[in-house]
């Protein structure tokens, strides 16, 4: 299903470039986060959490497939979801830097998940009214998944923050480690501004304010302290990543790169 628009509305090349980049940011964030969760399967703290984390991974891979499929169409170079996932190099990936951070311990994974789930709630929620019908449809479906993910991750944040002394200390440490990547989430750049001006994407500053309130409330419930904010140097949205992404992609893309042109 493609977004039906008047011919003229799609003929602005700079808008179309921004649209493609915007879709890739969403797609790559879901893909990279889903890939990280896939690493947990068989190693979670309890069998029930293996199943829970696997569900999250499946939802995120599903979102990535829908979004990458759309991105491939927008790009118009005859690529498909797999070509985008398996044959781009790190500088071409536009995921949030937060998504590529390693799993660490369960607290690191829960904090990373919760921060991104709260972000996706704002983004998918805002996209439901998008002038881009395709994005609106994908967002509506994804929002239901994200609502469950947020329930899962915020529930665990509370249990770990307000559990034992050890779990509290670990979670506070995870927050300290990951908080510096949150600056990127709602700081708008020229792509974000073009998208919100065109009625395609929600305006980031307002969404960021709501995100901040939700995060603060969750931290209070979990008896955790919000770390101090620092100016952020991370630009995953622009393809400038941490060293982690290279290793993640090397593992993910290995087979397709080793056997070029093969069908799987």
């Amino acid at each position, binding site marked *: 299903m493609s977004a039906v628009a008047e011919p003229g509305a799609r003929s602005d090349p700079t808008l179309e470039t921004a649209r493609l980049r915007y879709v890739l940011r969403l797609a790559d964030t879901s893909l990279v986060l889903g890939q990280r969760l896939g690493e947990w399967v068989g190693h979670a703290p*309890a069998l*029930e959490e293996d*199943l*829970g984390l696997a*569900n999250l991974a499946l939802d995120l891979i599903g979102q990535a497939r829908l979004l990458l499929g759309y991105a491939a169409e927008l790009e118009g170079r005859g690529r498909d979801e797999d070509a985008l996932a398996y044959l781009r190099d790190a500088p071409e990936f536009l995921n949030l830097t937060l998504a590529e951070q390693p799993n660490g311990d369960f607290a690191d994974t829960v904090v990373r998940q919760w921060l991104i789930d709260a972000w996706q709630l704002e983004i998918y929620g805002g996209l439901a009214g998008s002038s881009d019908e395709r994005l609106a449809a994908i967002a509506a479906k994804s929002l239901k998944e994200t609502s*469950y993910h947020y*329930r*899962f991750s915020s*529930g665990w944040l509370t*249990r770990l923050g307000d559990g034992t002394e050890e779990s509290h200390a670990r979670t506070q440490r995870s927050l300290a480690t990951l908080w510096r990547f949150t600056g990127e989430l709602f700081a708008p750049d020229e792509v974000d501004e073009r998208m919100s001006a065109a009625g395609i994407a929600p305006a980031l500053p307002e969404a960021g304010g709501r995100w901040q309130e939700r995060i603060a409330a969750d931290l209070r419930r979990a008896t955790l302290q919000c770390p101090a904010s620092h100016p952020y140097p991370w630009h995953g949205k622009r393809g400038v990543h941490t060293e982690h992404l290279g290793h993640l992609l090397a593992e993910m893309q290995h087979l397709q790169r080793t056997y070029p042109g093969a069908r799987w």
Partner: protein
Amino acid sequence: MSETDWPLFEVFIRSRSGLEHKHVGSLHAADARMAVEHARDVYTRRQEGVSIWVVRSADIIASDPAEADSLFEPARDKVYRHPTFYAIPDEVKNL
């Protein structure tokens, strides 16, 4: 190694509106909210449910199989509770 065990919960799923909840198995969870999430993850992956009940196994009161005779046997010869016991001529409708 000693750690706190998560209690056992029994899971009941209603697969469709109009049907009753059916017992599908059990799982471990630390609290009620987690039990519902686990039940959702374990027992409804294939759209098998529209409603979940979880009950702590310790709260279930069950009849004692040793008393099966006195609990259930007396109903056996009271066949007049079953509609097929009564002979109604075929021409009579709506009975």
